[in-house]
């Protein structure tokens, strides 16, 4: 009975999460007239034209590749830079450590609008406008606070005795960090990695302003289907649906430790 109720709730929530996407997929399989038909149609003759258009469209492929490079780069460098900082903040108290942690957090608090022009000028002078590395740096900067703070939370959950024992055994701080702490924090790395990837994959404002014709990520590119006095519903919904595939693949790969942690930690 309990299991039954629980499943009901879980499936209702799944339905809720899925319904707007169902509507998007629905739209992508319709002609432009059907897409806006009144009353909305649930049963119709699906067409694949929108998908064919999108697959043949080199620009959409370009958005996809740019997004992939930027999101993977951001996830990799973000974790590489963020995890050490998180570990130190979780395990050491030093002069100003609380303020330092808060400063990192505060970088996420400023609304970006006021900073856009100075940011743009800085990138212009450095010559990294419209480059993958430029956008990766910006995205790492945007997401570092969340990586550091969440990872710090995960490190604090790991019993400290294991690390202490390792240190007593003669390992250095570095060895203890990457041989003990990092493997133990894999569920955390997995969750934070997925979040970072998704945040970068879908980031719009900086991708718009710092990217241009060479680097144009999918949120920026897909916005182009919202034209002047018309919306290209078919292409918009079809490309958004197709772009889900690589994301889900990435999420699937990265959630393995989550599942492992889950089975280890669950109680039946």
């Amino acid at each position, binding site marked *: 009975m309990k299991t039954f109720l629980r499943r009901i709730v879980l499936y209702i*929530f*799944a339905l809720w999460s*899925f319904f*707007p996407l169902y*509507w998007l997929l629905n739209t992508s399989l319709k002609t432009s007239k059907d897409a*806006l*038909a*009144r*009353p909305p149609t649930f049963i119709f003759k699906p067409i694949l034209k929108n998908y064919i258009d999108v697959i043949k469209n080199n620009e959409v492929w370009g958005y996809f590749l740019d997004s992939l490079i930027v999101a993977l780069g951001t996830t990799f460098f973000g974790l590489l*830079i963020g995890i*050490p*900082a998180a*570990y130190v*903040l979780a*395990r*050491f*108290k*030093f002069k100003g450590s*609380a303020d*330092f942690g*808060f*400063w990192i957090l*505060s*970088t996420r*608090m*400023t*609304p*970006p*609008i*006021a*900073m856009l*022009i*100075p940011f743009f000028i800085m990138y212009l002078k450095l010559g990294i406008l419209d480059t993958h590395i430029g956008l990766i*740096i910006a995205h790492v900067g945007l997401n570092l606070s969340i990586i550091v*703070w969440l990872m710090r*939370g995960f490190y604090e*959950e*790991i019993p400290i005795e294991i*690390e*202490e024992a390792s240190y007593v055994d003669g390992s*250095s*701080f570095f060895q203890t960090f990457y041989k003990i702490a990092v493997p133990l924090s894999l569920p*955390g790395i997995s969750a*934070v990695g997925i*979040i970072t990837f998704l945040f970068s994959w879908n980031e719009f404002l900086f991708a718009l302003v710092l990217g241009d014709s060479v680097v144009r990520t999918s*949120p920026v590119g*897909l916005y182009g289907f*919202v034209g002047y006095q018309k919306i290209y519903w078919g292409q918009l919904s079809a490309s*958004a649906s197709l772009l*889900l595939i690589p994301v*889900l693949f990435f*999420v*699937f790969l990265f*959630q393995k430790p*989550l599942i492992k*942690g*889950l089975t280890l*930690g*669950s*109680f039946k």
Partner: protein
Amino acid sequence: MNHFKKERNKFIILMLMPATILLVGLTLFPFIVSFILSFTDYSLLRPGQTKFIFLDNYIELMKTDEFWIALRVTVVFTVLAVFVQVVLGVVIATLLHNENTNISFLRTMYLLPLAITPIAATFTFRLMFNPSLGVLNYFMKLLGFEPQAWLASPSTALFSLILVDTWQWTPFILLICLGGLASLPNEPFEAAKVDGASSWQIFIKITVPMLYPFIGLALLFRSIDAFKTFDIIYVLTSGGPGILTRTLNLYAFKHGIEFLSMGYAGSIAIVMLIITIVVAQIFLRKNKLLTPKETLKQ
């Protein structure tokens, strides 16, 4: 002892170095520029005529109704949206954690709102909310309710936006809580089970307190981001009806990008920053999240 200290300091500095360099390099210059600009009447419309006006922008802001309305909208939106998202996120994460079948299918479903390109999702909502062509009113009629104006009515617009935000961001809380649950030790749960505690008691007495640091962090980040909400409101209502859903960030965007008054927009941004800092400090201190629980000692 001394050696330990030296090693320890070296380790701390090296580990923090990359993050520090990156963040200083990236945020210091833009921050200082916009901070200084907020004390000027800098407008791109009047190149070369910028004057230093000290606190005038801030005084003007405090005197403007629109600012206070925007602040109220932002606070109401943030509090309601984040509250609903945290409750939903924690409950679903716990239920999912107790589940043993179909997990990967469900988890994928739950992550979809975070994964989809936001612009496509937002426009889909615009389509679904459409009072005459949209699917939401179609269902309302089917179920025998009056069709609603949704985004156009003063009584339902903010609610509709919170609905969209909740759809999009509950998975974020869910994901962090799932990660947290996966990293918690097993023993307390099993002990409670042996003692014959009910699921509800376990949830309230064990799951929530143990998960608390994660819930706190998820809540913190979600609030920081919700406070800056822009995209969905910009596309769905543009701040209407009237200015009843215009948030501070939308207000800043209007002045900075549409009106090109960068000085005034800068002052809005600084006020938003100050509010966030104060609230975050109080929250972190109260919940003792600023300093580590345990530290490595010799």
